[in-house]
């Protein structure tokens, strides 16, 4: 038996023993385990699942062991993912720390920074938020103006961020600040980490068209941030910001494997002679699912290419653009499949308008993390090499 086959068998047995039954079911937004100082577990099973996985480093399977990870190579990590999918295991922990800050710290952080910040992420103890966008720095992110003044061993930070996801629930922030106002806009930005409980930090949730408030305005009034938490060099933060955006885009484009649209339609509308009765809708669904399947294979191909040593680069912009537009299309179709039932806003039958609210949420997919138009700009310049 090959080493990998043995790893698969051991993993399967371990998961069978350690993944609680209730954690082997599809997950709604409310079932996500975000971790953090103030996180309240929804169940004992949720807590146990996180603890078992964290103890093995499998909340972040491919991070090095010394930083709280599982130390798995790519093949092993793929097997773990496959085995988790096989039993429909929920991710034990979802966070911006795992998804975004971690990869940036692994690439740009010092050994001390990694030792300090990565293990609490892996264990789900510290929840992070991302301080990027500002009221006047959206698509033009590098125009950001949040000011960090040099005070020797620390900075004093003043300014405002916006669209900070779950800032009101986060423990720490990774934040882009301007450390040099005389340099050109990309060259005066630094990447710093600080505690959201620091004096001078305040947050205000923004109510969205969905009625949800996943985003906040975040204000900094003379906030102290220690220089030991400056990642990379001062004024070189844009490099890290760009790297992280690439990462974020791949993630946003990859919406995972939600319930197939056709299955939703089948459950809702039933079949007649083996087909969805509404022929026009069936056609729309098939068209969408053809694109969705082709895109799913594109994600697989991108991962295989990266594994084979190819540089993902601007290809992530394509994944972000295509994946988010597909997801918007998918939710438009879910709305059509459910008809007026989907438009109920309050009430128990609709779980307080879940379908409508999720549909509205997707409208942000092609705005956050760089708009569709920005992605198309990147593709045309960096891949197609069209003139500026």
């Amino acid at each position: 038996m090959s080493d990998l086959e043995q790893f698969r068998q051991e993993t399967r047995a371990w998961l069978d023993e350690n993944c609680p039954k209730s954690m082997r079911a599809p997950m709604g937004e409310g079932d996500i385990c975000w971790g953090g100082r103030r996180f309240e577990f929804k169940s004992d099973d949720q807590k146990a699942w996180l603890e078992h996985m964290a103890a093995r480093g499998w909340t972040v399977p491919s991070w090095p062991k010394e930083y709280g990870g599982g130390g798995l190579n790519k093949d092993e990590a793929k097997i773990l993912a496959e085995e988790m999918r096989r039993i429909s295991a929920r991710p034990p922990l979802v966070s911006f720390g795992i998804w975004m800050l971690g990869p940036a710290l692994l690439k740009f952080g010092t050994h001390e920074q990694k030792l300090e910040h990565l293990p609490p992420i892996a264990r789900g103890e510290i929840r992070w938020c991302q301080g990027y966008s500002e009221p006047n720095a959206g698509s033009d992110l590098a125009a950001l103006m949040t000011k960090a003044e040099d005070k020797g061993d620390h900075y004093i930070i003043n300014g405002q961020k916006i669209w900070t996801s779950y800032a009101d629930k986060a423990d720490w922030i990774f934040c882009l600040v301007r450390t040099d106002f005389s340099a050109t806009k990309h060259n005066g930005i630094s990447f710093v980490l600080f505690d959201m409980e620091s004096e001078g930090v305040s947050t205000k949730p923004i109510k969205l068209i969905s009625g949800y408030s996943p985003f906040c305005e975040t204000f900094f009034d003379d906030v102290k941030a220690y220089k030991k938490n400056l990642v990379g060099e001062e004024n070189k933060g844009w490099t890290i910001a760009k790297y992280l955006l690439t990462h974020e885009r791949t993630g946003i484009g990859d919406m995972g494997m939600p319930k197939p649209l056709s299955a939703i339609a089948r459950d809702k509308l039933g079949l007649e002679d083996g087909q969805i009765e509404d022929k026009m809708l069936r056609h729309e669904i098939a068209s969408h699912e053809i694109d969705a399947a082709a895109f799913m294979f594109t994600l697989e191909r991108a991962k295989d290419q990266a594994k084979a040593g190819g540089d993902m680069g601007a290809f992530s912009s394509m994944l972000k653009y295509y994946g988010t537009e597909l997801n918007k299309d998918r939710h438009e179709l879910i709305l059509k499949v459910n008809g007026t039932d989907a438009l109920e806003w309050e009430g128990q039958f609709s779980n307080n308008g879940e379908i409508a609210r999720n549909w509205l949420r997707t409208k942000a997919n092609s705005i956050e993390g760089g708009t569709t138009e920005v992605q198309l700009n990147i593709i045309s310049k960096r891949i197609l090499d069209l003139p500026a």
Partner: protein
Amino acid sequence: MAMVLNEEQQLLKETADGFFAEKAPVGQLRKLRDDKDETGYSKELWQEMADMGFAGLLIGEDEGGTNFGLVGAGIVAEAMGRTLSASPYLASAVVGASVISAAGNADQKAALLPAIAAGETVLTLAIDETSHHRPEKTALKAEKTASGYKLNGLKVFVPEGHVADQVIVLARTGGEKGDRDGLSLFLVDRKAAGLIVDRTVMTDSRNWAKMTFEGVAVGADALLGSEGKAMDVLEGALDKARIVVAAELLGVSQECLDRTVQYLKERKQFGVLIGTFQGLQHRAAELFSEIEVTRSAVLKALQVADMGGDARWFASLAKAKAAKTAELATNEAIQMHGGIGMTDEFDIGFYIKRARVLQNLYGDFSYHADRFAALSGY
């Protein structure tokens, strides 16, 4: 299987790209068209392709082929799509070889496969009878006689029909039009008595034919596979062909994008390169994305079919997506080239013409979207 080309496949790609760019650029198709060439393709080119092993990619080594597999066949088709190289590759080396391999008995394989691989014998499949691909609706009749069968009926849209040596004919030996059962495959000599072949000059300047069967008599040994059970073996072979057609469409689309992007970098209006206009940049970027997504669907289907799995769902996915993307790519190419794209002198018109023919071949977007939905359980 990782969704990247392995070393061997990468090498084949480089070889094929270089070969067709040098030996059969679009100019060759233009010349064949302008000369009203009787064969409709260059026999020298086809022989060279056979010498390169391209005609035997799907044929076993014992039968004179290279057994390279379907991914390789797709790689060559994509390269041909880029230069619109005319040859009986699809009709003979892909469809012909696949059907004979799937349905033929040992004698038939021994007689035909080495000859296909060597480029000596050209095969084709006569399947469609109307303007739309509907194999189950086959009406062409094969009646049993004392010595074999007698064929009566019409076939249209037969690739290389007027030059093929042997024609594989899908005919009804039982059941009613619309039944999956009762269909059989026959091998018929193109020069058989009673077979009237009319070359149909099509939009893409390639070889197509209408075939009228007026009491064409064939021996019992002309039957390929079991009588009445043709669809069981034909569907797999057809799906391979559909995926390879999708690969050629991918090549057409990619070439349209590349030529268009190049044009955007050269053409000036209002004193600047038109490639600086965001309106055009975004259209090109969207097209790039559609082509990349199509490439994944095609590669996945090629790999699944290569491994011998049930490729039906993947084939319909690839063919539908490739057809849709090629429609977009060819339309966008003409629009972004502007007036020059409308001229016959400029090559881009050849691509849109070829694309529409391939889009229809072995099932158009609607056919495959419907099949995809049915196979997905709705």
